[in-house]
């Protein structure tokens, strides 16, 4: 083929998990204005924001009240015990970053007057019951970030 040159092009053999495919939020004050949530979590406290002006309890935690637009919010504790509202188990179809954990249980938990989704760490689907009590649990990632889960007491 005349003067056509054939050459190789290179791509890196492995790529570090890019941060936008990392499900966990960036927690430090350089990256978020609700860093206090994670600071409290490191102390074993699950908290959220409450509007000082209209009194609305806001989940997820935020910096502006969606009800009255006030930015005077305070941190309140939700407690450490919840009640299981609904649950399932991720058997097939787990995303990258969680595949190694599958199968694992996921639930919606009633806590502190809210419903929040969370992983349930120490029980399979067959071992869970609607309405049963669950205990807060904190997991730490290898880079020091933390997140909440629940467990059967």
């Amino acid at each position, binding site marked *: 083929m005349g003067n056509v040159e054939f050459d190789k092009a290179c791509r890196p053999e492995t790529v570090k998990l890019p941060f936008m495919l990392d499900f966990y939020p960036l927690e430090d004050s350089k990256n978020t204005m609700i860093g206090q949530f994670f600071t409290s979590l490191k102390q074993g406290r699950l908290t959220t924001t409450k509007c000082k002006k209209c009194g609305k309890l806001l*989940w997820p935690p935020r910096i502006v009240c969606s009800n009255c637009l006030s930015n005077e919010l305070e941190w309140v504790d939700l407690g450490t015990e919840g009640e299981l509202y*609904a649950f*399932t188990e991720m*058997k*097939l*179809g787990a*995303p990258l970053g969680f595949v190694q954990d599958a199968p694992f249980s996921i639930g919606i938990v009633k806590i502190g007057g809210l419903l*929040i*989704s969370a992983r349930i760490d120490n029980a399979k689907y067959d071992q869970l019951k609607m309405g049963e009590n669950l205990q807060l649990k904190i997991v730490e990632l290898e880079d020091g970030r933390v997140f909440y889960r629940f467990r059967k007491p």
Partner: protein
Amino acid sequence: MRKVAIVGGGATRCGKREASWRDLAQEAGKAMFENVPNLSQKDVDSLIVGAAQPERFAFQAHVAPLVAEYLGIMPRKVLARTELMCASGQAAIRYAYACVASGLSDVAAAFGVEKMFMPDMAEAQTNMTCVLDREWDGVNALSAPPFFAMTAQRHMFEYGTTKEQMALVSVKNHRYSALNPLAQFPKEVTVDDVLKSVMIAPPLQLLDCSGITDGAAGVIMVPADDAKKYTDTPMYVVGSGQANIGNTVGNLANMTEWIPLKMAAQEAFQTAHIAADDVDLAEVHDCFTISEIMEYEAFGWCEKGKGGKFIEEGQPFIGGKVAVNPRGGLLGCGHPLGATAILQTLDILQQFRGEVPKGRYVEGAEVALAHNLSGPANVHSIMVYSR
């Protein structure tokens, strides 16, 4: 507001296609234009492209001008891509409808494309996990199957809905998709097949879930006064509705009663000057079997909590109270996110034109609706059509 008509459209076959995002767009574009022979590409002044996640699935943003170039369209009124996840195509139709109704556009194409099969399917599953609030729900691996599994669990708990009733939805929709040449799963299934299929997220099994799908489709919308220039058999937009409440899973209005769907349905029926019972044919969003059961209830075709009984009695089959998903649904045809609503709409047009096979033809249908939910069923979008 001007009355708006759909004068034609076309689509690709859906499924695991040996084709790229661009191939799918071209295939559907060619089919769409060939269906409206009196229209040239240059007549299209507006193009709205429904695409949920081209950045993730095909590493491509700015897809509306990409489609315009490939299809030889030169938009000069309105050009945009709509993203409303599973309802991205319905958003494209709603947007195109608004453009034509307002007088801004005289010929608008509502188009939809999704390429979902990837070499590593875990990557596709990953994409689907940033649909719910990624930092508070996605982080718990809450993609669609676990979310709708918990919805099903609550519905079974509160209303006594059974897995057999849910399975019947899959049986019905596969019965019709078996007669649809565009369907991803053109094969009938039995209740037993559904109950024996692999467990995805209990109580949902594989045949309770719609698929990962490649596909594309487009329809042409014009002012009703111009419709007969293009076809003897247009279909008219007669009503619509859309509503949203909350986003994070814990902030939904109600997990087992889709309040935003009731609101959107009420708006759709009011604008169309009809009642729920006037609907002859409904293409509704059966992303999971439980979804369709809850939709019977929210549309008011049966009492709250009696959706399971409604299908047990055969009411949503052709010949029953209302023909639900005679196209074959998302369960039978697949769910190429951005293209899904366009495929539903196109099938309604073909129903009105009498172009569908006998076993899934709804004879004498005058009023039809297309519905999509998106996210954790916090958003519902509906269009109502008539002959």
